[in-house]
Protein backbone atom coordinates (compact mmCIF):
# COMPACT_ATOMS: atom_id res chain seq x y z
CA UNK A 1 0.00 0.00 0.00
CA UNK A 2 2.70 2.47 1.05
CA UNK A 3 4.87 1.49 -1.91
CA UNK A 4 2.09 2.27 -4.39
CA UNK A 5 1.50 5.66 -2.79
CA UNK A 6 5.24 6.37 -2.63
CA UNK A 7 5.67 5.30 -6.25
CA UNK A 8 2.92 7.71 -7.40
CA UNK A 9 4.32 10.55 -5.27
CA UNK A 10 7.85 9.73 -6.43
CA UNK A 11 6.74 9.82 -10.06
CA UNK A 12 5.26 13.30 -9.76
CA UNK A 13 8.10 14.56 -7.57
CA UNK A 14 10.75 13.36 -10.03
CA UNK A 15 8.78 14.73 -12.99
CA UNK A 16 8.69 18.11 -11.28
CA UNK A 17 12.39 18.01 -10.35
CA UNK A 18 13.50 17.04 -13.84
CA UNK A 19 11.20 19.68 -15.29
CA UNK A 20 12.71 22.49 -13.20
CA UNK A 21 16.30 21.36 -13.76
CA UNK A 22 16.50 23.59 -16.84
CA UNK A 23 19.30 21.53 -18.33
CA UNK A 24 17.48 18.26 -18.45
CA UNK A 25 19.08 14.88 -18.89
CA UNK A 26 17.97 13.63 -22.25
CA UNK A 27 19.56 13.13 -25.61
CA UNK A 28 22.48 15.43 -24.69
CA UNK A 29 23.69 13.40 -21.70
CA UNK A 30 27.16 14.28 -20.46
CA UNK A 31 28.84 12.61 -17.44
CA UNK A 32 27.42 15.54 -15.47
CA UNK A 33 23.88 14.35 -16.24
CA UNK A 34 24.74 10.68 -15.72
CA UNK A 35 25.69 11.43 -12.12
CA UNK A 36 22.32 13.06 -11.62
CA UNK A 37 20.31 10.22 -13.16
CA UNK A 38 22.04 7.47 -11.18
CA UNK A 39 22.09 9.32 -7.87
CA UNK A 40 18.49 10.52 -8.06
CA UNK A 41 17.32 7.07 -9.15
CA UNK A 42 19.19 5.42 -6.30
CA UNK A 43 17.88 7.81 -3.67
CA UNK A 44 14.23 7.74 -4.77
CA UNK A 45 14.17 3.94 -4.83
CA UNK A 46 14.94 3.87 -1.11
CA UNK A 47 11.88 5.95 -0.33
CA UNK A 48 9.71 3.99 -2.75
CA UNK A 49 10.18 0.37 -1.65
CA UNK A 50 11.27 0.97 1.95
CA UNK A 51 12.19 -2.18 3.88
CA UNK A 52 9.93 -4.45 1.87
CA UNK A 53 12.04 -5.89 -0.96
CA UNK A 54 9.54 -8.59 -1.89
CA UNK A 55 8.61 -9.25 -5.51
CA UNK A 56 4.98 -8.32 -4.75
CA UNK A 57 6.02 -4.94 -3.39
CA UNK A 58 8.57 -4.10 -6.08
CA UNK A 59 6.38 -5.27 -8.97
CA UNK A 60 3.47 -3.30 -7.46
CA UNK A 61 5.66 -0.19 -7.47
CA UNK A 62 6.67 -0.76 -11.09
CA UNK A 63 3.04 -1.23 -12.14
CA UNK A 64 2.00 1.95 -10.30
CA UNK A 65 4.76 3.96 -12.01
CA UNK A 66 3.87 2.57 -15.46
CA UNK A 67 0.22 3.34 -14.86
CA UNK A 68 1.05 6.91 -13.89
CA UNK A 69 3.19 7.23 -17.00
CA UNK A 70 0.31 6.03 -19.14
CA UNK A 71 -2.17 8.37 -17.47
CA UNK A 72 0.15 11.36 -17.82
CA UNK A 73 0.77 10.41 -21.46
CA UNK A 74 -2.98 10.40 -22.08
CA UNK A 75 -3.33 13.73 -20.29
CA UNK A 76 -0.61 15.23 -22.49
CA UNK A 77 -2.35 13.95 -25.60
CA UNK A 78 -5.69 15.43 -24.59
CA UNK A 79 -4.43 18.78 -23.37
CA UNK A 80 -1.61 20.64 -25.18
CA UNK A 81 -1.44 22.92 -22.13
CA UNK A 82 -0.51 19.96 -19.91
CA UNK A 83 1.94 18.76 -22.54
CA UNK A 84 3.66 22.16 -22.38
CA UNK A 85 3.79 22.09 -18.58
CA UNK A 86 5.11 18.52 -18.38
CA UNK A 87 7.43 18.46 -21.39
CA UNK A 88 8.05 22.16 -21.97
CA UNK A 89 8.38 23.68 -25.43
CA UNK A 90 11.29 23.63 -27.85
CA UNK A 91 13.69 26.52 -27.27
CA UNK A 92 15.43 28.37 -30.07
CA UNK A 93 19.14 28.63 -29.24
CA UNK A 94 20.63 30.02 -32.45
CA UNK A 95 18.92 31.84 -35.25
CA UNK A 96 20.51 33.22 -38.43
CA UNK A 97 23.96 33.61 -36.90
CA UNK A 98 22.77 35.00 -33.58
CA UNK A 99 22.82 33.25 -30.23
CA UNK A 100 19.56 33.58 -28.34
CA UNK A 101 21.42 34.46 -25.18
CA UNK A 102 18.56 34.64 -22.66
CA UNK A 103 17.10 31.36 -23.91
CA UNK A 104 20.50 29.67 -23.66
CA UNK A 105 20.99 31.00 -20.16
CA UNK A 106 17.56 29.73 -19.12
CA UNK A 107 18.23 26.31 -20.64
CA UNK A 108 21.80 26.15 -19.21
CA UNK A 109 23.17 25.34 -22.64
CA UNK A 110 26.34 26.82 -24.10
CA UNK A 111 27.98 27.02 -27.55
CA UNK A 112 29.97 23.81 -26.93
CA UNK A 113 26.73 21.85 -26.49
CA UNK A 114 25.38 23.27 -29.75
CA UNK A 115 28.62 22.53 -31.59
CA UNK A 116 28.65 18.96 -30.23
CA UNK A 117 25.17 18.43 -31.70
CA UNK A 118 26.27 20.09 -34.96
CA UNK A 119 29.27 17.78 -35.38
CA UNK A 120 26.94 14.79 -35.10
CA UNK A 121 25.16 16.21 -38.18
CA UNK A 122 28.45 16.65 -40.02
CA UNK A 123 28.47 20.42 -39.54
CA UNK A 124 32.03 21.71 -39.19
CA UNK A 125 31.60 25.26 -37.85
CA UNK A 126 29.00 27.36 -36.10
CA UNK A 127 28.80 29.54 -39.21
CA UNK A 128 27.16 26.68 -41.08
CA UNK A 129 24.22 26.53 -38.66
CA UNK A 130 21.05 28.40 -39.48
CA UNK A 131 18.97 27.25 -36.54
CA UNK A 132 19.72 25.31 -33.36
CA UNK A 133 16.76 24.18 -31.32
CA UNK A 134 16.72 22.60 -27.87
CA UNK A 135 14.05 19.94 -28.18
CA UNK A 136 11.65 18.76 -25.50
CA UNK A 137 13.61 15.51 -25.09
CA UNK A 138 16.77 17.46 -24.21
CA UNK A 139 18.40 16.94 -27.61
CA UNK A 140 19.63 19.78 -29.82
CA UNK A 141 18.42 19.86 -33.43
CA UNK A 142 20.60 21.54 -36.00
CA UNK A 143 19.31 23.05 -39.24
CA UNK A 144 22.14 23.78 -41.67
CA UNK A 145 22.38 26.86 -43.83
CA UNK A 146 21.55 26.28 -47.45
CA UNK A 147 24.57 26.34 -49.69
CA UNK A 148 24.42 29.35 -52.00
Amino acid at each position, binding site marked *: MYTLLHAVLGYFFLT*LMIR*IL*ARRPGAQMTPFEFVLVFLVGGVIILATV*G*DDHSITNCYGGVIAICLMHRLVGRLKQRSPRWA*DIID*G*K*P*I*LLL*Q*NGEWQTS*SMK*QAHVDDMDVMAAAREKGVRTLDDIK*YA*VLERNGGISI*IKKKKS
Partner: protein
Amino acid sequence: MPAMTETHPVEDSVPKVNDELAVGSDLEFQRRWESVEKTIWIFLIIFLLLSLLGFFGRGPMAKVTAKAADGSMEVDYERFERFSTPSVLTVRLSPSAIHNGKVEFWVGENLVKPLGNQRVIPQPDKSQVGNGGVLYTFPASEGQASIEFQTQPSKIGKTELKMRVPGYSELDLNIYVFP
Protein backbone atom coordinates in the same frame (compact mmCIF):
# COMPACT_ATOMS: atom_id res chain seq x y z
CA MET B 1 -12.81 -6.02 -45.98
CA PRO B 2 -9.64 -4.41 -44.52
CA ALA B 3 -10.01 -2.36 -41.33
CA MET B 4 -10.26 1.40 -41.90
CA THR B 5 -7.63 3.63 -40.30
CA GLU B 6 -8.82 6.87 -38.75
CA THR B 7 -7.24 9.85 -40.49
CA HIS B 8 -7.41 13.63 -40.58
CA PRO B 9 -5.69 16.17 -42.84
CA VAL B 10 -2.34 17.67 -41.81
CA GLU B 11 -2.73 21.21 -40.53
CA ASP B 12 -0.03 23.81 -40.07
CA SER B 13 -0.44 23.58 -36.30
CA VAL B 14 3.16 24.14 -35.16
CA PRO B 15 4.10 27.84 -35.03
CA LYS B 16 6.98 28.80 -37.30
CA VAL B 17 10.09 30.88 -36.82
CA ASN B 18 10.72 33.43 -39.60
CA ASP B 19 7.92 31.76 -41.49
CA GLU B 20 10.18 28.89 -42.47
CA LEU B 21 10.93 26.59 -39.52
CA ALA B 22 8.14 24.88 -37.59
CA VAL B 23 9.57 24.81 -34.05
CA GLY B 24 6.69 25.66 -31.77
CA SER B 25 8.86 27.72 -29.42
CA ASP B 26 7.05 30.30 -27.35
CA LEU B 27 9.02 33.10 -25.69
CA GLU B 28 6.09 34.17 -23.54
CA PHE B 29 5.68 30.62 -22.23
CA GLN B 30 9.44 30.44 -21.63
CA ARG B 31 9.36 33.63 -19.53
CA ARG B 32 6.39 32.47 -17.48
CA TRP B 33 7.95 29.06 -16.94
CA GLU B 34 11.21 30.65 -15.82
CA SER B 35 9.37 32.54 -13.09
CA VAL B 36 7.53 29.34 -12.08
CA GLU B 37 10.89 27.55 -11.91
CA LYS B 38 12.39 30.30 -9.75
CA THR B 39 9.44 30.18 -7.35
CA ILE B 40 9.66 26.40 -7.03
CA TRP B 41 13.42 26.60 -6.42
CA ILE B 42 12.89 29.19 -3.68
CA PHE B 43 10.49 26.78 -1.93
CA LEU B 44 12.89 23.87 -2.40
CA ILE B 45 15.82 25.83 -0.98
CA ILE B 46 13.72 26.91 2.02
CA PHE B 47 12.76 23.24 2.49
CA LEU B 48 16.43 22.24 2.32
CA LEU B 49 17.49 24.89 4.85
CA LEU B 50 14.70 23.92 7.26
CA SER B 51 15.73 20.30 6.76
CA LEU B 52 19.38 21.09 7.54
CA LEU B 53 18.32 22.90 10.69
CA GLY B 54 16.34 19.85 11.70
CA PHE B 55 12.76 21.10 11.42
CA PHE B 56 11.93 17.82 9.68
CA GLY B 57 13.97 15.73 12.11
CA ARG B 58 17.63 14.78 12.53
CA GLY B 59 19.09 18.22 13.17
CA PRO B 60 19.82 20.76 15.90
CA MET B 61 16.26 22.13 16.00
CA ALA B 62 14.83 18.64 16.43
CA LYS B 63 16.80 17.76 19.56
CA VAL B 64 15.37 19.19 22.76
CA THR B 65 15.49 18.60 26.49
CA ALA B 66 12.36 18.69 28.61
CA LYS B 67 12.28 18.79 32.38
CA ALA B 68 9.54 17.73 34.77
CA ALA B 69 8.10 20.60 36.85
CA ASP B 70 9.38 19.11 40.10
CA GLY B 71 12.80 18.23 38.66
CA SER B 72 12.24 14.47 39.03
CA MET B 73 13.45 13.82 35.48
CA GLU B 74 14.97 15.30 32.36
CA VAL B 75 14.33 13.93 28.90
CA ASP B 76 16.47 14.36 25.80
CA TYR B 77 14.42 13.56 22.72
CA GLU B 78 13.70 14.54 19.13
CA ARG B 79 10.50 16.56 18.86
CA PHE B 80 10.64 16.12 15.06
CA GLU B 81 11.11 12.53 14.01
CA ARG B 82 10.85 10.69 10.72
CA PHE B 83 8.68 7.75 9.82
CA SER B 84 10.42 4.40 10.30
CA THR B 85 13.71 6.12 11.19
CA PRO B 86 15.47 5.17 14.45
CA SER B 87 15.51 7.75 17.22
CA VAL B 88 16.63 7.77 20.84
CA LEU B 89 14.81 9.13 23.87
CA THR B 90 16.96 9.40 26.99
CA VAL B 91 15.44 9.85 30.42
CA ARG B 92 17.61 11.05 33.30
CA LEU B 93 16.01 10.44 36.66
CA SER B 94 17.00 12.48 39.71
CA PRO B 95 18.49 10.63 42.71
CA SER B 96 15.30 11.38 44.67
CA ALA B 97 13.40 9.00 42.35
CA ILE B 98 15.46 6.03 43.56
CA HIS B 99 14.02 4.12 46.49
CA ASN B 100 15.32 0.91 48.06
CA GLY B 101 17.71 0.17 45.24
CA LYS B 102 15.14 0.47 42.50
CA VAL B 103 13.47 3.11 40.39
CA GLU B 104 10.03 2.97 38.81
CA PHE B 105 9.19 4.76 35.63
CA TRP B 106 5.84 4.93 33.86
CA VAL B 107 5.51 5.85 30.20
CA GLY B 108 2.35 6.16 28.06
CA GLU B 109 1.44 3.45 25.57
CA ASN B 110 2.19 5.81 22.68
CA LEU B 111 5.84 4.92 23.19
CA VAL B 112 5.07 1.37 22.04
CA LYS B 113 2.77 2.42 19.23
CA PRO B 114 2.94 4.72 17.26
CA LEU B 115 6.47 5.67 18.36
CA GLY B 116 7.59 2.07 17.95
CA ASN B 117 9.74 1.38 20.99
CA GLN B 118 12.36 -1.19 19.91
CA ARG B 119 14.61 -1.46 22.90
CA VAL B 120 15.00 -0.27 26.49
CA ILE B 121 18.49 0.16 27.95
CA PRO B 122 19.16 -1.02 30.64
CA GLN B 123 16.90 -4.06 30.76
CA PRO B 124 14.17 -3.47 33.34
CA ASP B 125 13.67 -5.98 36.15
CA LYS B 126 9.97 -5.84 35.54
CA SER B 127 7.61 -4.26 33.05
CA GLN B 128 3.95 -4.06 33.79
CA VAL B 129 1.34 -3.15 31.19
CA GLY B 130 -1.83 -1.27 32.15
CA ASN B 131 -3.36 2.13 32.93
CA GLY B 132 -2.68 3.30 29.39
CA GLY B 133 1.03 2.68 29.54
CA VAL B 134 3.92 0.58 30.77
CA LEU B 135 5.40 0.69 34.27
CA TYR B 136 9.07 -0.26 34.27
CA THR B 137 11.07 -1.18 37.36
CA PHE B 138 14.85 -0.86 37.11
CA PRO B 139 17.50 -1.82 39.62
CA ALA B 140 19.35 1.36 40.65
CA SER B 141 22.12 2.49 42.96
CA GLU B 142 22.59 5.98 44.39
CA GLY B 143 23.06 8.93 42.02
CA GLN B 144 21.43 9.91 38.76
CA ALA B 145 19.91 7.11 36.66
CA SER B 146 19.55 7.14 32.89
CA ILE B 147 17.20 5.09 30.76
CA GLU B 148 17.39 4.98 26.97
CA PHE B 149 14.46 4.11 24.69
CA GLN B 150 15.27 3.32 21.08
CA THR B 151 12.27 4.05 18.91
CA GLN B 152 11.25 3.75 15.28
CA PRO B 153 7.96 5.57 14.59
CA SER B 154 5.31 3.66 12.70
CA LYS B 155 2.77 6.46 12.24
CA ILE B 156 2.98 9.88 10.65
CA GLY B 157 1.66 12.91 12.55
CA LYS B 158 1.61 14.32 16.06
CA THR B 159 1.97 12.02 19.04
CA GLU B 160 1.62 12.98 22.69
CA LEU B 161 3.81 11.06 25.05
CA LYS B 162 3.25 11.12 28.80
CA MET B 163 5.75 9.90 31.38
CA ARG B 164 6.29 10.12 35.10
CA VAL B 165 8.00 8.66 38.09
CA PRO B 166 5.10 7.41 40.24
CA GLY B 167 4.43 9.97 42.96
CA TYR B 168 6.06 12.80 41.05
CA SER B 169 4.77 15.23 38.42
CA GLU B 170 4.02 14.11 34.88
CA LEU B 171 5.88 15.23 31.79
CA ASP B 172 4.02 15.62 28.49
CA LEU B 173 5.98 15.58 25.24
CA ASN B 174 4.71 16.39 21.77
CA ILE B 175 6.48 14.52 18.99
CA TYR B 176 5.86 15.20 15.32
CA VAL B 177 6.61 12.38 12.90
CA PHE B 178 7.29 13.39 9.29
CA PRO B 179 6.91 11.06 6.29
